[in-house]
């Protein structure tokens, strides 16, 4: 775990920032750290999916319907 943390620091994913702590809920340290890791993988996964979707669209003759809803 420490290795992953160090990696994240190296990659600049974990940075210093000045944030006011107004939380009234204890979010749990482990959960906060895990989120950053999960989100990175998921976001990367979405980027890959959208890359392939664009390739498909480029080669297809049909129009793909765009989805920009809030949900």
């Amino acid at each position, binding site marked *: *775990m420490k290795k992953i*943390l160090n990696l994240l620091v190296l990659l600049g*994913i*974990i*940075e*210093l*920032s000045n*944030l006011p*702590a*107004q*939380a*009234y*809920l204890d*979010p*749990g*340290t*482990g*959960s*906060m*750290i*895990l*989120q*950053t890791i*999960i*989100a*990175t*993988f*998921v*976001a990367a996964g*979405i980027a890959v999916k959208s890359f392939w979707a664009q390739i498909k669209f480029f080669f297809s003759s049909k129009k793909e319907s765009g989805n920009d809803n*809030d*949900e």
Partner: protein
Amino acid sequence: MTNNVLEASFRDPSGFIFKQNDVLYRQINTPYKEDYDLFLKSGLYQKLIDKNYLVSHEEVGNFSEVAYKTIKPDLIDFISYPYEWSFSMLKDAALLTLKIQKIAVKNEMSLKDASAYNVQFQDGKPIFIDTLSFEKFAEKPWIAYAQFCRHFLAPLLLASYVDIRLTTLLRDYIDGIPIDLASKLLPAKTKFNPSILMHIHLQAKTIAKYEGNSTVNIKTLKMSKNNQLALLDSLKDLVNSLKWQPKGTEWGDYYTFTNYSDEAMQNKGELVKSFVEKINPKTCWDLGANNGYFTRIASDKGIPSVAFDIDPIAVEKNYLQIKNENEKNIIPLIVDLTNPSPAIGWNCRERESLISRNKVDIVFALALIHHLAISNNLPFKKIAEFFAGICNNLIIEFVPKKDSKVKILLSTREDIFPEYDEKNFKKAFLNYFRLVDKKEILNSERTLYLFSK
């Protein structure tokens, strides 16, 4: 005035809910001024209102000098708790929370908490009730993520992969099912699902690893808006994928296997309807409602009704029908009448017991008495006392020993119920009520009674 503050409303320094002269208000304290103003100015409030995701409110005059603002929120017909919800109700409440968080993030705000108690059901749909739960967005991990996993993800996963009855763990764990407990209870195959692996199993490990660790400063953790939205999508996809398709329980196909002929069923419905029209109640509870077939006699008339049943399948069927047909005025809940929801939480007052939540105008106790008296050994006296404590009017069906269903109940046990007859039944209830009407159900052994205080 502090005496009228609702018992559950103490954790959030932003404000609290209170009652004054029997009207419900929410006070917004000065420290929350910026976030509240942003909530309105950013248009987020209006967006959520327009979609019917959040209870609307009107601003009223302040009752206290320390208040920034005071608002009067729209009321919920009946307050219910997550451990009383069916699978799809919990799932829809979870999805609503995620939708709201996504819209909030896109509007530069974020939910401070993701408690299941922030959601209620109104007009057949889940709705968010905590107007003060929104804070200014920041590029850091979502503070309410762990709470969302405990309140929503854990019980849904346990219901889906292990047993629906595990959702009642929410009653024991008032801040949601601990992630490590969920991780232990879930079958090994869930470790091969990347989403469940990350959100539950790995989270359980990281929570344990960092417990009591003060060397990591979480205030320095950063998470971009994009990544936050990706996390929300991941949770949404996981919740959406969860299914509960139970094999029949005892009550799942109830109305297929009752002993009512079509004629009896129809006549019973007409009688219940005529009794309801006689009383014209403002609210209705149907106890042992099964899929809400008779509850709808009241709710279809616009009477806010609650359909209670012990069987999760029946309640689920009821909810799915409400959803499909866009029905309002009815909410189905899972309750064991012999062990109804107790008061829980701080000082045993935070979340109310079932019977102290409202006094209801009319109760339906149809095809129920024999289950209470015979299956549960409850004397008529105690049953009558219970009903007298919860309602003003009662439609109750007496099911005699010669009824085939009672014969089934008695077939597997000794008949220690010499007092179980109509005479004693009537006597016990006349202690608390007066008899308004009584009709025999055609083509059946059963009699319908209408009692009023």
